[in-house]
Structures are given as C-alpha cells and as structure tokens.
C-alpha cells in the first residue's frame, strides 16, 4: 500500500534545480516616510514592471546596525505599493527570524559581497556598469589547433595564426584574426554586445557575439572566405566586408 502511494507521489512531483535572474531591492538605510516616498516614486515610473516582477529584499548594503531593524514595517510599505517581495537576504539572525515569521524565506548572504566587494552607490534595481579597468589584449602567434581553446577573459584577442576547425577562440572584447578562422569565434563572452569579430578570411563553423550565435554558411553572400567584420545589431549578427577588402570569393 505504502509503495503504491510512493509511486503516485513520485509521478506528480519532481524537484529540479534552476537558475534565474531576480531583481534585488537593496536598502542602504531605512526611514519609513522617506522609504515610502522613494519606493512609490519608483513604482509610479514603471507600474507595469513593478506589478509583474518579484523582488528579493537585501539588507546587505545597509549602513549601521541591523539590531531591532523594523523589517515588518518595511515589508508593510512594500505591500502597500504592490512590491512583491519573495525573500529576504539580511545576514542578521534577528531580522531573518522576523522575516520568517512574516512567511518569507531567507537566503544566505552573497558570498562575493562578504569578501568586501560591496558598492554602496548601487541604486535599487539599476544595473551596475562594468568596471572601467583598462583591458589587456591577448596575442596568439601559434596556430590554434582542433580541440584547443584560447580565451582572452578580460579584453581583446588578437590571433595571427590559423584557428583550425574544431578549435575555439573566445574573448570578453573583440576578436581580431589575421589568418583564416575555421573553428568557432566567440566575442563579448561576458555579455558585451558591442564586441566585434574582425577576420581576414571567414571560414568559421560558428560565430557569436554577446551570447548571440550563428553558424556560418558557406556561400559568398555570407562572407565566406572573405575579410569581414561581424557585428551585433538588434540581437541579429550581421556580416559585412571589411572596408577596403576585395569582395570576391
């Protein structure tokens, strides 16, 4: 009997891991009146967005002590302006206890932030601009052989030897190839959609910019065996001849 009921349960429920992006509502200091004013101004600027999107409340960047933090009052204000808070990240057992009593799950504090990488200037919901560190280009003179992978994790990649079929070249920035590229070329691997791929002879299996990829067709119209620049416009890869390059197959 019990085995039968187990079988039924197994058929209905499955636990699966998933990763999804979530907007974080960061609160650096809390004054009930000021907070209500700020939050309602945000909601008024994009009511559709705020109605649809769930938020994670974060008190990690809160300046000052979280001792006796009025989290229930804060959650009340959020509920008043229809902000859907689905969880709390506080790092204080006392606050977490209160949040749980309000029926909200608590998440562990972000590990990278604990190592002191906090940026206090980040406004709620705003995407953080990438840090403006001068990037270094990586130069490759040896052929990149089938099965090899060459990555420029921070900047541009300059390749002066052929990239074989079955090889992969990746760069956070642009890829400049002064020899045939026959493998895969992936630029903007960290999401830089303005990255470009320049190559002397496009013979690649696949090209990608900022996660948008395309297999390359072997026709002269698609730039096959020609000097081209590959760019991303409106989520679509475009392949154009390099200025000054002869347009022939």
């Amino acid at each position, binding site marked *: 009997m019990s085995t039968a009921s187990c079988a039924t349960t197994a058929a209905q429920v499955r636990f699966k891991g998933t990763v999804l992006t979530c907007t974080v509502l960061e609160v650096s200091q809390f004054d009930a009146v000021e907070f209500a004013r700020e939050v309602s101004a945000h909601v008024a600027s994009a009511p559709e967005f705020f109605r649809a999107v769930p938020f994670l409340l974060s008190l990690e960047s809160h300046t000052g002590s979280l001792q006796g933090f009025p989290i229930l009052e804060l959650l009340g204000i959020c509920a008043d302006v229809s902000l859907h808070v689905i969880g709390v990240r506080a790092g204080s057992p006392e606050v977490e206890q209160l949040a749980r009593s309000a029926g909200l799950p608590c998440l562990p504090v972000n590990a990278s932030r604990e190592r002191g990488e906090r940026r206090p200037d980040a406004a709620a919901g705003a995407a953080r601009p990438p840090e403006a560190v001068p990037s270094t280009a990586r130069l490759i003179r040896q052929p990149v052989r089938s099965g*090899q992978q060459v990555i420029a994790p921070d900047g541009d990649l300059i390749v002066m030897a052929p990239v074989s079929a079955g090889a992969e070249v990746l760069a956070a920035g642009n890829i400049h190839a002064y020899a045939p590229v026959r493998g895969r070329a992936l630029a903007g691997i960290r999401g830089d959609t303005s990255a470009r791929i320049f190559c002397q002879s496009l013979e690649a299996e696949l090209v990608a910019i900022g996660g948008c990829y395309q297999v390359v067709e072997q026709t002269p119209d698609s730039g096959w065996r020609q000097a081209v620049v590959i760019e991303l416009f409106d989520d679509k890869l475009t392949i154009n001849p390099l200025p000054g390059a002869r347009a022939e197959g």
Partner: protein
Amino acid sequence: MAKIIVVTSGKGGVGKTTTSASISSGLAARGHKTAVIDFDVGLRNLDLVMNCERRVVFDFVNVIQGEAGLNQALIRDKRLDTLYILPASQTRDKDALTKEGVEKILVELAKSFDYIICDSPAGIEHGAMMAMYFADEAIVVTNPEVSSVRDSDRILGILQSKSRRAENNEEPIREHLLLTRYDPQRVENGQMLSVQDVQEILSVPLLGVIPESQAVLNASNQGIPVILDEKAPAGMAYEDAVARLLGEDRPQRFIEVPKKGFLHRMFTG
C-alpha cells in the same frame, strides 16, 4: 645526446608503423645508431613489419617494470647493424607505461644512440601521450583525407601543449608533416585533398609525400621496411624524407601525375 622523434597521427591506419620502420631503417642505413620503440602496448605490430617477431623474448613493459634489462629486450636488426628494435608487450595494456618508466628507458637509450624513434599508438589516450611526451621532434603522419587531417591537427595541438617541452617552457617540438597514401591522379580528379590543401589547413613544414603504392603492403607482409625497396616510389619517397629530416634539401618527386609515354598514349588513346 640522442634525438627523440615521435611518429604520430591521432587517426589509426594511416601508416605510423610503416613510417617508423622506414624512417628508422633509413637513419640506420646512413650509419646513425638508431632505436625504434613500439609504444602500441597490447597491439604489437612493429616487430612484424621489421620481421623480428620470432626473436621477441622481453619487451618494453618488462624493462619498465624491471623484469629485464634494456640490452636483453633490444633486438638488433638482421639487415642493419646500427638498428635496434624495442618491441611492445602483447599481453599488457597501455597503463603499464608510466612517465617515470618511459623516461628512465629513454635516458638510458640516449647515452648510446643517435636517434630514438617512438612509434605511437593511434588515439590521444595514455599510450599516445607517453610516446610523444619526451619528443624533440614529431613526424605527423597524415592521409589526404579530411578526418585524418582533423586528427593530425588535434595531435599537433597536444604536442604543443602537453609535451615535456611545452610544460617546461622549452623550445617547442619541431613538427614535420608526412603525407602518406597520396594518389596524384585522384587529386587531379578532385577526389582527394592536395598537398597544398593539407598544408594550408595544418601549416606545418612538409617532410615528404609518400605515394599510394602496392609495394607498401607487400613490404609489410614480408617484414621488410619499404624504404629498403629502392625501386618502389614509396621507398624512394621515404629515402627523400629521411634526407630532409637530416637537413638535406630535396625536391618533392611524387606529387604530380606521371606523364604517359608516347607508346602508352598511342595504345590507350
């Protein structure tokens, strides 16, 4: 100090053992004291091609495991007295090869030999890695065919990243491309990759082009390295390759379709 040359390809059946036998015989025939080692543990073939299978008592693995001395396992070739063969074991598997064991044998051989030829097994697994790890030069054997070229490319990448020279940041392994089973007529008909096609893809200096020839199979079956067949084009092509390996400059001979004679044209139209 001996020069260690690995004969490798990635893909099987392209002619590694044939090449190892011919190149080592060619070097020995010029008076260089040469040892050729069969790294294909478990699939012993080199001794057959060299016609010494009935003289194998101890093998490579026996020496690595200390069950026999190196001199007991080395077989002196009957035709060339400067050529020695170290056969593979037929009953073990490739895990019996350890980096330390292989190094110990190579160091000992290097004391008295001029050239050590390592006949690599196919694939990119342990046996092949052991054969190439200590190499100074590599002969990459390739057939004019896409999958063989792709596998050779992969092997070239491994040579430049996983060998001892690469790991110690020394001068990289010197690479040579040897194109085997080449048929100029089929290239002309567009059925086979040309020398230029293969070189463009692999960008490695060309050591030689061995024409497709019945003589290769005959020689293997008789246990005579084809390089000793002075009348066969394949034998001559291997002779040229050995000369180039030693730094001589020789023109490529067998990459064009042979011109038909006057009588031949008369009778075949």
